[in-house]
Structure formats: structure tokens, C-alpha cells
């Protein structure tokens, strides 16, 4: 398409084809056409690209393409202006018929953000027979829940959930969209962000609104948590963010709260791939969730002799805690991945974190720096964990732990019985 100096698409005469009938001269509303050497000529700077000359030319000698309205395929739609996006949306993740805690944690945070922006909190719920969950969403702070309640969504399928939520974002146009950074959430969020061509910031530990420009300020740790970065998504909507479970506080549940539930029909194709062949729940350790334990006794490379695990378990039980570990023990096959604390394991924030033989390398610290009190037991006074611990005991854990067990029992007689039952 030829353009003039202003960048406007213009019409152009093909001299060989022109028969010199001069019909186009009369049609042109801006007198851009003149005759030269028996054929018509369009002044590119005058031409406004209206296409009227093309309509009257009998010889098809004018080169011009009228800008056609593009088909409304979601990705190619002319992006609505940013101001059309309003509301804070939260994805409600459902596992086995129960809403994931993180969804409510984000609902609470969403409520806080929405109140600052003076906009509604919106829930996006996909599932089958999830009416009660929709209600729970409202009890936890949601104003409007958009529900696609359909057997199609009973099982999580990446492409379908991605399509469905993209559709909801395009329909509802929230300015902010929060998703829990669970395995499902992390599988899903980037699909939506890519389809919507918007920004996604993962594993945020802080979310806030900048009152000057109403932008979402997303704070996340980088380089193992030593630098916190505040990220903005200025010109694209929705501003998407994922947040790990237990980072935001669980809001109060108010069963008297009112809100709206709107059913939405899924407009995308039913996806049947991938096909789940079998689901194998984790065996005896399936009950262990180190993120829920108020006390963690975390074993590192310096305490990996399995012969002494029973003694360490006794110590943990005494405090009502759970055994967890750092990455090397999982890699050596001594403990299952479920118990791994760290950047590539779980993020924990217990009341009491007791690290035994844990050096506390950066990527471990990321997973536990939210702990309220940190006690380090180590032979190396230079170990990073020792440097940041609220209390550090230097020496051989094999001597220290029994001594601690003895001392604790003396001071807390209740522990003389079977330890604290959790």
C-alpha cells in the first residue's frame, strides 16, 4: 500500500490501465486528481484515502485498498483503551471440589486493592457444580463472580482454562488479574498473559496501588531474594500477577456478605488433550504439608545421617513441628520433595524455623525468610544461615539436640508427656 509523506494510505493510478475517462476527477472530494499526458494522476499529498475514485473507475486502474474492519479475533482486536479496564479479578482455583486457600488469600488482597481503586472485586470461577464455591467467594470479599459451570471444566486442561479465562478477561476487562502461584496457577497464568499480550509478574510478595497513577505495584524477589524489584505493567491490561500461597493473609469469612453471581457460557473449543490416564496421590507422606506446620525442623547437608533421623523427629514432635529439609537431601533421595524448603521447593513461614546443618544458601533463604524466628544449629559460624538467624548454636548437632530436648522438657513440663499434639 503506497503511503504519502504523512504516512497515510493513499490511492495511486496505474498509468498503463487508465483510459482517460476523467470520471475520477469529479468524484474526488479534495481535488487531488489531475490529467497529465492523457492519463489521470493523483497528488499523494492531497489524497485523503477515501477510495471514492476507485468506486467509479471503469478500468480498474486505481491501486487502493480500503482499510477494512478487521475480524474480531480476540488477539487481533484493536485493544480497547486502558481506561475501559476496571476491577480487580481473582482466579478461584478449585481442586477436588474445594477452593484452594490461596484463592481466598488473593480475594482478601484483591479487596484491599479494589477499595483503594474504588472498583469491584471480581471472581473468575471455572468448574463443575461449583455454585457453593461461588458463594464462598462472595463471603470472602468478592463482589461479582463470573462462573463457567460446566462438566468441561471438571478437570484442569491447560488450553481450555487458558481460553476460558482469556475470554472472561476480554469480556469483563479487569484492570488487575491475580492468580495463585500453585502448580496449576503457574501452568495457567502465562498462557493467558501470552494470549492477551499483557505483562505477568510471578511470585509477588507485595502488591499495592500507586495513588498517583492507579498502577499496580508488584514487588517480587529476584536473585534469590537479595534484591526486591517493584514491577509495573504500564500500558497493557490486565496487569497480571501470581502470588504464592501463604504470602497474603486469609481474609475473614463473612457469611452475611452480598454479591452477584453471573453465569457465563464458554465460547471456545472443547479441548480434550492432554488426556489424564491416572492420578496417583502421594502415599504416606501425602498428609505432610510443611507449609502448614508452625514449627519446622529443617535438615541440611550437615545433618543428613539417616541413623539420627528418629532423634530429630523426636525433637520436632516435642515442639509440635514437622521435619523438612534443604535441596541436597531431596537430591540424595533421603527425604521426599514434599519436604523441601527453598526456591525450587516450598516457601514456608513458620513461627519457629530450626535449621540443623543448613548452610542457608540464597536459594534456600528465599523459601524461609518469612519465618518468624530462626534458630540455626551448625558447626560453621560463617554459614549464611547463622549470619541471619535470630539465635545460633555452634557445635555438633548430635550433642546439641539431645541437650535441647532435655532442657526443653525441664522448662516446659507439658512436654514431658507425648510432646505437643498437632
Amino acid at each position, binding site marked *: 500500500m503506497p503511503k504519502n509523506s504523512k504516512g497515510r494510505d493513499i490511492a495511486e493510478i496505474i498509468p498503463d490501465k487508465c483510459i482517460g475517462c476523467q470520471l475520477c476527477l469529479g468524484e474526488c472530494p479534495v481535488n487531488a486528481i489531475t490529467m497529465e499526458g492523457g492519463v489521470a494522476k493523483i497528488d499523494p499529498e492531497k489524497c485523503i484515502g477515501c477510495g471514492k475514485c476507485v468506486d467509479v473507475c471503469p478500468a480498474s486502474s486505481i491501486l487502493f485498498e480500503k482499510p477494512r474492519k478487521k475480524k474480531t479475533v480476540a488477539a487481533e482486536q484493536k485493544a480497547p483503551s486502558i481506561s475501559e479496564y476496571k476491577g480487580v479479578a481473582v482466579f478461584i482455583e478449585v481442586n477436588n471440589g474445594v477452593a484452594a486457600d490461596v484463592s481466598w488469600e488473593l480475594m482478601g488482597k484483591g479487596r484491599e486493592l479494589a477499595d483503594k481503586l474504588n472498583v469491584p472485586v471480581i471472581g473468575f470461577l471455572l468448574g463443575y457444580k461449583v455454585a457453593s464455591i461461588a458463594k464462598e467467594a462472595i463471603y470472602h470479599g468478592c463482589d461479582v463472580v463470573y462462573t463457567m459451570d460446566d462438566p468441561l471444566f471438571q478437570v484442569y486442561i*491447560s488450553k481450555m482454562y487458558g481460553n476460558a479465562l482469556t475470554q472472561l478477561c476480554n469480556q469483563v476487562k479487569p484492570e488487575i488479574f491475580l492468580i495463585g502461584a500453585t*502448580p496449576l496457577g*503457574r*501452568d495457567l497464568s*502465562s*498462557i493467558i498473559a501470552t494470549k492477551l*499480550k*499483557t*505483562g*505477568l*509478574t510471578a*511470585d509477588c510478595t507485595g502488591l499495592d496501588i500507586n495513588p498517583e497513577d492507579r498502577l499496580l*505495584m508488584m514487588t517480587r524477589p*529476584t*536473585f*534469590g531474594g*537479595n*534484591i526486591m*524489584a*517493584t*514491577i*509495573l*505493567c*504500564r*500500558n497493557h491490561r490486565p496487569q497480571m500477577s*501470581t502470588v504464592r500461597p501463604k504470602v497474603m493473609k486469609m481474609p475473614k469469612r463473612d457469611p452475611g456478605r452480598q454479591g452477584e453471581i453471573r453465569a457465563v457460557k464458554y465460547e471456545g473449543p472443547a479441548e480434550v488433550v*492432554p*488426556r489424564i490416564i*491416572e*492420578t*496417583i496421590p*502421594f502415599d504416606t507422606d*501425602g498428609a505432610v504439608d510443611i507449609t502448614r506446620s*508452625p*514449627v519446622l525442623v529443617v535438615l541440611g547437608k550437615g545433618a543428613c545421617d539417616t541413623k539420627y533421623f528418629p532423634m530429630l523427629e523426636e525433637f520436632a514432635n516435642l*515442639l*509440635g*513441628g514437622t521435619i523438612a529439609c534443604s535441596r541436597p537431601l531431596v537430591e540424595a533421595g533421603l527425604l521426599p520433595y514434599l519436604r523441601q524448603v527453598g*526456591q*525450587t521447593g516450598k516457601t514456608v513461614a513458620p*513461627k*519457629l524455623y530450626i535449621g540443623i546443618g543448613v548452610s542457608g*544458601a*540464597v536459594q534456600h533463604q*528465599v523459601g524461609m*525468610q518469612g519465618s518468624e524466628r530462626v*534458630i540455626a544449629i551448625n558447626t560453621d559460624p560463617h554459614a549464611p544461615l547463622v549470619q*541471619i*538467624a*535470630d*539465635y*545460633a*548454636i*555452634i*557445635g555438633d548437632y548430635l550433642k*546439641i539436640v539431645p*541437650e*535441647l530436648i532435655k*532442657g526443653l522438657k525441664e*522448662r516446659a513440663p507439658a512436654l514431658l508427656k507425648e510432646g505437643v499434639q498437632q
Partner: protein
Amino acid sequence: MHIVCCIKQVPDTTQVKIDPVTNTLVRAGVESICNPYDIVGVEAAVKLTERYGGRVTVITMGPPQAESALRDCLAIGAHKAILLSDRAFAGADTLATSYTLASAIKKLSTEDPVEIVICGKQAIDGDTAQTGPGIATRLDFNQLTYVSEIINLDLDKKVIRVRREIEGASQIIEANLPVLLTVELQLGAPRYASLPNLIKALRQDIPVWGVKEIGADPDMVGLKGSPTSVKSIFAPPPRKGGPVFDTSDSLENAITTFLDTLFQKDASILAEVLNPDSKG
């Protein structure tokens, strides 16, 4: 069968030292390595081609030094490596990164159709696990994340069956090719390269592709193609170390002093921990 593996060169965070004054990474002499999850993916890809035939191409978007991470992958058996490097790629967030990688994969597909793409589940330098699914979406490939085992590949039916790790369970799941996998470390550690393969990898020519070569839209790569930007960075309030109790003189004394201090300073936390019923 053509498999493409996407890798990233990252600082070896097990060796990274932190400057507590400026709270930045001290990287003098710290080796950059191929992201452990990514090279596990390359090992799996090489094993697949050893079993079923085919080729493995490794690509990375990065600065010139990322070439050494590519060589590590060539050494364990990848057949070809391409470095995507261009000043225009700099400053990319995950949207721009997945665009760049997907463009390169599309380009590779024109000569040799790509049926499987393998990425690590996440990069250890604090990345987000977003790039893999982003590439899958752009290529319209089926997506299988957190893959811990490749159970079977049926090249006639064009179906791959894998084990995935999800919340609280493992899943046996199957998808039609073309497919993108993001992989867990359990998939299998990379082999220790044989000397001939290492020497070959050290000598191999690695082409460098820029914006033009991958046919990318310059507005969609690098900083230009990144919806997110960093507003500011700051050091988190550092956890300050507390008292240290040395048991080398007297174990008993040290522990007694420690417990005294603990029970005195943190009585409330102890109360919560030891009496769970009376949760505050």
C-alpha cells in the same frame, strides 16, 4: 523427529556471594552455568533421539557468553546449537522472551518441523516458570508442565505419555504431538560427557541469530516488547543475626544460656508453639 530445547545461562547461585553492603550479587569469578532444569531437559531430549532417532537443537536467548552454556549441551549430545543474540533482545521480560524463542522455533521448523519443545520448569536465577507455557501458547503446542518422567513416545500415533507432578499427587498424562514439556530435575541428571563429545562441542561452530534471522517483529522483542518494567529495586530489610552460642567450651552452659535467652526474649512465640490450643 526434531526436538528443540530452550536453555538459559544463569549464575551458579550455589556459589553466589552476596555483598551485604550493596545487597547485590558478587559475581567475580562466579561461574555461569546452564540452568540445571534446562540441561536435564536436554539430557532427556538426547535420550529420546538415541531411542527413537532424530535431532536435538538447543537454543538460548542471551549475551555472547551464553555460548558456553550451549556448549555444555552440545557436549552431552545435542546435535546443533543456536545463540539468539542481538542488542534488540536486551531487556526482555517473559512475554518478549517467549516471543523471541517461539520465532526462532518457527524459523527452525521451516527447514525441519519441530515436534517437541523441552524447557526447564524454571530458571534458578529467580525466574518465573512463565516462558515455557508462553512458547507453547504461541506455537499452539499442547503443554505439559512439571514433567518428571517420559513414559512413552509413540511416533506413529504421535502421542507422548508422561508423568507430571501436581499438588499432592503424580499424574500419568498423555498428549498429542506437537507438544511442549517443562521438566523437573527428577527427569534425570545430565550425563558426564565423553571426551570426544566434549572436544567436538568445544570446536563446534555456533551460529548467532538476531532479529532479522528469526524474522521477528522488532517491536515485539526486548525492552520494546515487554509490557512489564522495573520501577525500582531495593534491598529487603536484612535479617540481622542474633546471639551466637558456642558449645565448644561447655555444651551444657551454652544450651542453658540459649534456652534462658529464648524463654526470656521470645516467651510469646514459645507459648504459641507449645500450647497450640491457645492460639493468639
